[in-house]
């Protein structure tokens, strides 16, 4: 037995890294594997995310240059533009106005939608609630409808000549406001977003509410708290992280507003082709064929979104930490 140590050696001894790894193999092999596993994701990220963004950035520093009448071969070349596209975008009042319009829209839609979502979530989470699953589904259902379809559907309801609502208002002799004009247009657009988005946000908040341990409620009840007090003093503070999250999503979605105004645009004179910043980007890229200006604007919008959303997240986190410290 002892005569053949080489053959009878315990399995893996010496060679196998987990038996007695030598310093060299540990350094040489172990770190390689994670990179290998990460490779597909990294490649896809590079190919379909980093590269296009890089290309968009590159485009944003270029511009088309035409010579003469611009007809025939070789009349159009691409040249370096430096920051020209950016200065144009920043001094373009239409882009700024679009941002202001979206801001006005966001001021309506975010508080209303999140307020309703929180209210519905709290009501569904109340102790005695009937038909909870059905109600939950009913509130959530509009979220399953594609945004363009929702906007079209509401568009029909907003048009006085085809809307059943206006028919009823007319029969009752009530005033018939034009929802696709001026101030009411913001309400009309917000309504579509609130209708479509409340359910999703409600589910997020509701799920957080479900995760609160029952003991907390028991303790509160023993202390004599009413359901309203429990909701205000316990539930809402405890789902604050979810509220922050839904707010974060909503702000980003607002900044990227595109579907609703684009779908309503053909129905009314009130929505211009550059109503929201993203519509302006789309218009410049595909209406005017100026991908360079569009790339610069897209970069600016992405930057603004980044600054706004992460700025908000940081502020929220800091508050949380302060409260935890207190």
């Amino acid at each position, binding site marked *: 037995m002892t005569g053949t140590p080489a053959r009878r050696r315990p399995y893996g001894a010496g060679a196998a890294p987990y038996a007695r790894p030598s310093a060299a193999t540990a350094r040489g092999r172990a770190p390689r594997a994670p990179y290998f596993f990460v490779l597909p994701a990294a490649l896809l990220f590079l190919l*379909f995310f980093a*590269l*296009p*963004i890089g*290309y*968009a950035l590159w*485009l944003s520093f270029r*511009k*088309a*240059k*035409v010579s*003469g*009448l*611009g*007809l*025939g071969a070789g*009349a*159009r070349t691409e040249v370096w533009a430096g920051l020209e596209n950016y200065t144009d975008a920043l001094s373009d009042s239409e882009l700024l106005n679009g941002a202001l319009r979206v801001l006005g829209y966001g001021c309506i839609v975010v508080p209303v*939608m999140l307020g309703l979502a929180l209210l519905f979530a709290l009501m569904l989470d109340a102790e005695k609630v009937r038909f909870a699953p059905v109600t939950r589904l009913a509130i959530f259902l509009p979220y399953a409808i*594609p*945004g*363009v379809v*929702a*906007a079209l559907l509401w568009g*029909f309801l907003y*048009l006085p*000549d*085809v809307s059943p609502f206006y028919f009823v208002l007319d029969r009752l002799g009530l005033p018939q406001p034009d929802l696709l*004009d001026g101030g009411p247009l913001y309400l009309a657009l917000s309504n579509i977003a609130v209708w*479509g*988005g409340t359910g*999703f*946000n409600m589910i997020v908040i509701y799920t957080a509410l479900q995760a609160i341990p029952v003991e907390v409620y028991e303790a509160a009840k023993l202390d004599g708290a009413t359901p309203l007090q429990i909701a205000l003093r316990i539930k809402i503070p405890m789902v604050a992280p979810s509220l922050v999250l839904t707010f974060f*999503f909503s702000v980003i*979605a607002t900044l*990227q507003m*595109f579907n*609703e105004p684009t779908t309503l645009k*053909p*129905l*009314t*004179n*009130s929505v*211009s*082709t550059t109503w929201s910043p*993203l519509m302006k*980007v*789309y*218009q410049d*890229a*595909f*209406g*005017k*064929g*100026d*991908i360079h200006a*569009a*790339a610069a604007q*897209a970069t600016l919008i*992405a930057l603004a979104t980044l600054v706004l959303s992460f700025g908000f997240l940081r502020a929220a986190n800091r508050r949380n930490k302060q409260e935890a410290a207190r």
Partner: protein
Amino acid sequence: MPYTKRRRLVTTAVAVALGATALAACGSSDDGEARSGPVSLTYWTWTPGMDKVVDLWNKGPGKKEQITVTVKKQASGDTLVTKILTAHKAGQAPDLVQAEYQALPTLVSNDALADIKDEAGDVKGKFADGVWQQTTLGTDAVYAVPQDIGPLMFYYREDLFEKYGLDVPQTWEEFAETARKLKKAAPDKDLTTFSANDSGLFAGLAQQAGGRWWTTSGQKWKVGINDDATKKVAEFWGGLVEEGAVDNQPMYTPAWNKALNTGKQIAWISAVWAPGTLSTAAPDTKGKWAMAPLPQWSADENRTGSWGGSSTAVTTDSEHKDAAARFATWLNTDADALSALAKEGGIYPASTSAQLSGAFTNPPEYFSNQPDFYAKAAEIAETTVPSAWGPNVNVAYTSFKDAFGAAAKNKSDFTAALDTMQDDTVADLKKQGFEVAP
């Protein structure tokens, strides 16, 4: 859109463009050398039933010449222009494309269309001068073969005109009077609407009045969108909208369909293709409409503008330009091809002889009450004045939608909107590096 992760449109588009660029390694070679063996061509078009017309080619002359054409159905108008330009950037544009006349300068200025003068130049005589001139852009080259045209006409509800005692207006002045008279007789009805969502109609009206939006002088473009003729048109419609004589809501909405279908709007200025649109927008009023020439700016004139109309062009990416040009001329000048186009695609041909061919002896079904519909249409088509398109029609059209949309909504000054349109167009030309004559 519900609140969820939303793909950033532009990033996606850029990604697509990038992918296409990567694939573009195989460029196009010059043609000209003698073809050997069969050739297959791809054709992007939106005309319905085009595949059936192309079948005629593939089984007839195409078989003899060993040229097979495949139709790829596309979205119409501007959407296709964008798609062609994107494909061209990648060197992957199809051999043949359908393009509206006003899109030709944009496509040519992006070097997407081939000069087919040698192959197609000799069919010039088959078309009215004003139509043919649109495919040459005033140069020696020929960039497309005309397919269909859209001369503007006046469509009206014959029965309702009679009911309210209205006469078909011969001049624009009479048109305004008719609108006012109707408003007085039936305050809830409108003669028509001024729609800001289709720039083509306004361009056609300006063309009739003598507006020439893009012209060249030497190596410079001259933009005349706010010239006196167009200003006259803008002022006229702005006045009607302001006094409430005509409606200010856009066309092609559910509300507009309903207004036409229920007789709330009793006239429509449109092109020769209107019967198709009316039969879907206002099916209940079939047989109640009639067509007349467009009102004139002065009684002794007889002119019209156009709204739409398209051509068949060969791209610079095509490796078989001669074969493609041969198909394009066959499609738009051959009698069999044109009557098939009329029957299957419902187009009104640009070829003057085809306008009076057998396919156009009977009126469209929707206008069965007007037996001489097509005879009249051919007469009107003859009075089409030449148009003048430039390399950034798309910019002017977008500007029109926004500026006139706001002006129509606020019932404010239309000439100010026209100036905005002019300024936007000139600014864009300058930005691209075009020389613009003052």
